[in-house]
């Protein structure tokens, strides 16, 4: 028998190694962002920069493109997408989870089916539709294709199924209609799920490159990743440092927001809000 503390120790080592594996690329990103070009291509894998020249990467990156404007665009687009996703997904998920109607399983099957369809497959028709309504190159073009998220519906439905029916019956007897139930009872309970979904949604749309690249032409609507594309021309091979600095800058808001909301988020996710 291995003693217990030793088992625990090996577990800790294993988990630590796994998380290091996760974090290593991120650490390299930060490291590259403060290295000078010569050092990056020197091929050393050390994390700490040899000189501090590389710090100039940050001002250079800010000077080369209106990164703040891009961050602002990113904020508007992500907030818009998230708001619509929640507004559409929550009532839909409530219906799928808790109301009995004919065809419910079929509709849910379609939602699951929707999870499968990649944006690549549907991009052309959506593009043509937007072009038809002269909506290309606008916030609408960035937001509209994502307002209904099959993943959100799926996630909320799974959560709503864990809400006891008695709670809803009780609200019905207390005089609430279905709409009031969603607003007053279900929505507050879903807060942790909504937080989790918000993170997924914001992260993926904040970092999305594919769609903005297709529908946006004017730099004033550039989202952060589009802004970074400026550093990515084939000839700009010696600007990896600036590229990494810009990447660090556009990743920073996400990381900061996460750290700020961390406690509440982890609590919500860890405990679930349904005890009692």
């Amino acid at each position, binding site marked *: 028998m291995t003693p217990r503390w030793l088992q625990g120790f090996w577990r800790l080592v294993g988990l630590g190694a796994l998380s290091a594996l996760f974090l290593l690329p991120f650490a390299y990103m930060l490291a590259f962002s403060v290295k000078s070009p010569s050092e990056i291509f020197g091929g050393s894998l050390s994390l700490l920069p040899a000189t501090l020249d590389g710090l100039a990467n940050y001002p250079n990156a800010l000077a080369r493109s209106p990164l703040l404007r891009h961050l602002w665009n990113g904020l508007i687009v992500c907030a818009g997408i998230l708001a619509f996703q929640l507004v559409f997904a929550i009532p839909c998920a409530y219906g799928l989870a808790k109301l009995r109607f004919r065809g419910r399983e079929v509709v849910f099957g379609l939602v699951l089916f929707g999870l499968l369809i990649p944006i690549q497959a549907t991009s052309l028709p959506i593009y043509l539709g937007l072009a038809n309504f002269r909506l290309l190159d606008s916030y609408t073009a960035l937001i509209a294709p994502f307002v209904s998220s099959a993943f959100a519906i799926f996630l909320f439905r799974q959560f709503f199924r864990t809400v006891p029916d008695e709670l809803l019956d009780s609200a019905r*007897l207390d005089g609430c209609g279905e709409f009031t139930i969603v607003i007053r009872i279900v929505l507050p309970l879903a807060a942790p799920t909504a937080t989790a979904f918000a993170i997924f949604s914001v992260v993926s749309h904040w970092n999305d490159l594919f769609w903005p690249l297709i529908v946006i032409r004017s730099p004033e609507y550039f989202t952060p990743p589009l802004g970074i594309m400026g550093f990515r021309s084939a000839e700009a091979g010696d600007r990896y440092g600036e590229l990494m600095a810009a990447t660090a800058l556009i990743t920073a808001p996400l990381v900061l927001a996460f750290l700020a909301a961390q406690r509440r988020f982890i609590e919500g996710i860890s405990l679930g809000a349904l*005890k009692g």
Partner: protein
Amino acid sequence: MVGPSGCGKSTLLRILAGLESQDSGEVRLDGRSIDGLPPKARDVAMVFQSYALYPHMTVRQNLALPLVMRDLTRLERLPFARRLSRRVAAKRLDIAAAVDRAAGIVALTDLLDRKPKQLSGGQRQRVALARALVRRPRLFLLDEPLSNLDVALRADTRGEIVDLQKRLGATTVYVTHDQGEAMTMASRIAVMMDGSIAQLGTPQEIYRRPADTRVARFIGAPAMTLLDGSIVRGSLRLTGGDAPLSKVAGAADGPVTIGIRAEHLRVTAEAAAAPIAATVHHVEFLGAEVIVHLVADRLPGAPAMVARLDPHAGERLSAGARVGVRPDPSALHLFDPDGRRIDTAVPGAHDFSVAS
């Protein structure tokens, strides 16, 4: 005041509340049909087995919600309406007063600002009761409200609910699977079996004159002993037994089921002289009384017999002892082969309170 069963009673309650619609029949409250009405128009309050408190609201908000939903219009419920309209502010004050009153009734005033998570099982149960009574509905529905409580707490709360019900005077339908709860709390019990009501009556009626074997077996602890027997020329005999148990008037000859309550079985040391010779299987000590489980010697396949003795008599018995069992002939229950009660069968069955 609905009684116990395996299933069907919660559905009945949900039909009364309007949460489900019945296949046939009509639901009436105070003489008026409330069939088409949705739950909120029925003026019915329900306490669920799990209490169903809103976990994200404080006790105060939990109690206020039914009143807010009833008294305020959709517009008046908006958070800023209180500031804008004096009428809304007055209504909000009324609600707060009603909440305080309801909390006072169930002694929860100190806990109004806690969340359900911070309360014990008994306190949650009281919150659920208060939320049901805060809007003074015409009908209370209680669905096994005690089943999530400890045994000790259950006895206390039982008394509290009965008190409350008497004070408020509202019609209350209380669903439980515990016959003891039903017996002690109800003024009228409906015993539900296999989806329909097997018997409706006062606890005394149901205990003393169970309508069929299912009710007889279900009501009363320990359960009634049921033995196969037959009536032969007006005389009652146990199948496999020798001596006739008693004379029977007014019942046709044929097989019957004989029911004997535990308190009507006399256990004597002389196995030979008694009508049924039996062996003690095990003895349960309950403090003020002793329950003895007996296996009849000459009735193969018969279920165990259960007798209730005082501790004095019971403690001299131990497992394996051979004893004689004599049922009180005036307190037998007879059922026909379909399980239905044969009513005028045993002379003296009516005045058994004297006989006991």
